[in-house]
């Protein structure tokens, strides 16, 4: 009983992190049809910057803001200066972002070294809470709450606000949206920056649990891809439930069949690809 409860909690909290990572990837693809392979870099870079800032100031909050700000600047730079000048074709765009993935990864290795590092938990969440007979680390509960809040906020933003309506219009048909006076160009940059910020947030919040190390950018990228493939590319709902599913699968897979750790994630993905190529919540 305890085993199942703890593993479920761990799975759900990991799933919420995956949701933060996949949501940006999915939004960017939905609006611009760009497959952003540098998304894993946003995760890693945000965490590295936060690590340094925590080291200097001791403030987790300040570190989170600094990490996200750095990544947002990188995202805006990539979108405005580079991606925008490419023809609207998937492959050059994907390769360009892959170049950034390599550069950011290598420069991070240069600056922060090759040792795996973990962000310290914020003081407030250092202890555990007791729920009936079970003891949970409060930080994991915080991660779950944060994921749920971000998910709800995104849903509200997309479905209930004017900005969300503009976004949905632009996703549906960018040209028509432009013709009706929506500033799609600004919206694109905004979505890119926002998606990058979410990925950085995922990294910083996940930093105390997962840590950061050379190669983490690739691992996170692939996990985020699995989430959007299972959930459906371009769908927020898909990112949320895909994240949950992958988080749980990963946790129970690792706990129950350590030999087949990766396989428990990739096998369901392959099955979904075969049966429902557009994912569980994909439109196409």
């Amino acid at each position, binding site marked *: 009983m305890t085993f199942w409860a703890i593993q479920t909690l761990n799975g759900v909290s990991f799933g919420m992190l995956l949701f933060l990572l996949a949501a940006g990837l999915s939004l960017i*693809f939905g609006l611009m*049809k*760009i*497959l952003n*392979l540098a998304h894993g870099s946003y995760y890693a870079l945000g965490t590295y910057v936060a690590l340094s800032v925590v080291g200097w100031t001791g403030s987790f909050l300040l570190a989170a803001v600094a990490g996200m700000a750095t990544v947002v600047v990188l995202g805006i730079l990539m979108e405005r200066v*580079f991606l925008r*000048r*490419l*023809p609207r074709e*998937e*492959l*050059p*765009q*994907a*390769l*360009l972002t*892959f*170049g*950034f*993935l*390599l*550069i*950011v*990864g*290598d*420069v991070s290795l*240069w600056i922060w070294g090759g040792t795996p590092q973990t962000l310290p938990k914020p003081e407030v969440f250092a202890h555990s809470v007791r729920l009936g007979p079970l003891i949970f680390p409060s930080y994991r509960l915080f991660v779950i709450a944060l994921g749920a809040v971000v998910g709800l906020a995104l849903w509200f933003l997309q479905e209930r606000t004017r900005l969300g309506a503009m976004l949905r219009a632009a996703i549906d048909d960018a040209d028509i949206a432009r013709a009706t006076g929506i500033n799609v160009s600004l919206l694109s940059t905004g979505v890119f920056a926002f998606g990058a910020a979410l990925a950085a947030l995922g990294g910083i919040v996940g930093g105390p649990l997962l840590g950061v190390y050379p190669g983490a950018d*690739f691992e996170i990228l*692939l996990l985020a*891809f*699995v989430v*959007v*493939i299972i959930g459906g*590319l371009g769908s927020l709902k898909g990112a949320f439930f895909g994240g949950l599913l992958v988080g749980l699968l990963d946790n129970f897979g690792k706990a129950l069949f350590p*030999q*087949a*750790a*990766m*396989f428990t*994630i*990739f*096998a369901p*993905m*392959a099955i979904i*690809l*075969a049966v429902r*190529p557009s994912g569980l919540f994909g439109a*196409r």
Partner: protein
Amino acid sequence: MKRTLGIATGVAVLVLLPLALSSYQLGLATKMLIFALFAMSLNLILGYAGLPSLGHAAYFGVGAYTVGLLAVRVVDNFWLDFGAGLLAAGVTSALFGLLALRAQGAYLLMITLALAQVLWGIAFGWRWLTGGDDGLPGVPRPGAGLPWSLSSGPSFYYFVLVVFVVATVALWVVVRSPFGVALVGIRESERRMQVLGYNTWLYKYVAFVLAGLIAGVSGNLFVYYNGFVSPAYLSIVFSAMALIMVILGGAGTLLGPALGSAAIVLLENVISASTERWLTVLGLIYVVVTMFAPAGIMGWWLLTWGAPIRPPIPPNARSTPAKPGRSSIPGQAPRSRYGASALKIDGLSHDFGGLRALDAVSFEVAEGERLVILGPNGAGKTTLFNLVTGLFPPTVGRIALFGRDVTRLAPHRRARLGLGRTFQITTLFPRLTVLESVLLAVQGADRARFTLHRPLAAFPRLFARAERLLEEWLLAERRDVLTRQLSYGEQRQLELLLALAAEPRVLLLDEPTAGLSPAETASVAGMIRRFPRDVTILLIEHDMDVALELAERLIVFHNGRVVTAGPRDEIRKDARVAEIYLGIDEA
């Protein structure tokens, strides 16, 4: 001649290379050849067929793992191991192709990446078999089973060189064959190829498996070269590396990817020797190539030094006298109004979500008849054409072509039964010349269309027919002009010509004169008038003069229904037609 000399020089240099290089440098040259093969295999689907893949390392890695595992754990026999590696790569690509080719563009990139990642996960997690993260060391150079050992540097280099040359020649034959030319057609416009009678899925699938096989060959070679295999061989890093090699060298050119591979392998070596920041440099190469050199080295070369490589025209094709074909004499064929049924539409409906675009439409067209379909925008005319050609299935209803039920038949099968069409929005091959486009259309109706072991130039009958059509329809002067450089009017004429070149018996023309000047309209209308008399024509037309001139019978559509139908003079007087066109609703 110049090209033969160039090739001979290149081969001679490669053969003499071991004399000039140190053993370290020779190892580097061997690696270049192996990666050249890997990149060239990807180029077959990326550069020729236009199918990007972020998982091409899957076949490379599967080949490498199969050879490595067999050689280390089971039996060290070259023929057995190499053959098994090839088989494994082929089976993997055959399986992945089934899943991946249902998607396009970014989805295709993602699915190929995901599938390769499944294999990576297996190699990574299945420790006791694969060694997991640490990889599988100790793979010996091939020797057992062969007349001589390949353990020395030069002997292994020559072995790789032989494999490289054989594979390159094979690829050279394939990309110049009717099959290879059809791949380029699919890259340029898959829809156009479908209605020309090509089973485009099968072409893409065969190319996909072939590319997987050749990638498997390179993976087999690389595990022998390195003596080691690890999950990295299956990773996105390897897949992306192949992509950048192809693009840096020049996608869609035979040898460009080999140049790209040589450049990357060399740069890696030089830069890694002096700095630890090779990955940063590689990242910059990705950025610079995609931003500033999308056509690659070969693209730049061709742009600077001359004409692009085109399928060579066999000399005997040019000298064929341009006699007009008998079937294309216009005019006076028997005007028997009631020939056999060419096309029968029965209760055809189509819904787009909740919108009924076509509502229980039924009519019949006789062989040789010229039928014009009238109706305002949104009346369901183009939807009708899309259903008849099979681009999407009807919600209900039946379509019969020459008495045969084709309702469930794929577009290319209908095309082969003699159904041709043009599109309202010009659908041509932008980066092919006029002649190449017509050749594709002619080839689509010829049994040579799936040949992949002989060059297109070995079929002079195709060239002869293409040239004859160009002369007959007055596009001969423009034969070597790229389609995208033609004027809009010329493009509309070319589209008609492509439809005609496929030897249709029923032709659907979707607003062929839309957007044309009066002079261009007259020449397109004249062209349609001169079409062979036995070809049944259904024409959607908004220009009333053209419509009334070409029509023997007219059908008027409104809101997805047939409002009225009848001979020309009857329709001309029908008050309802005027109402519809003047925008007065029946209600």
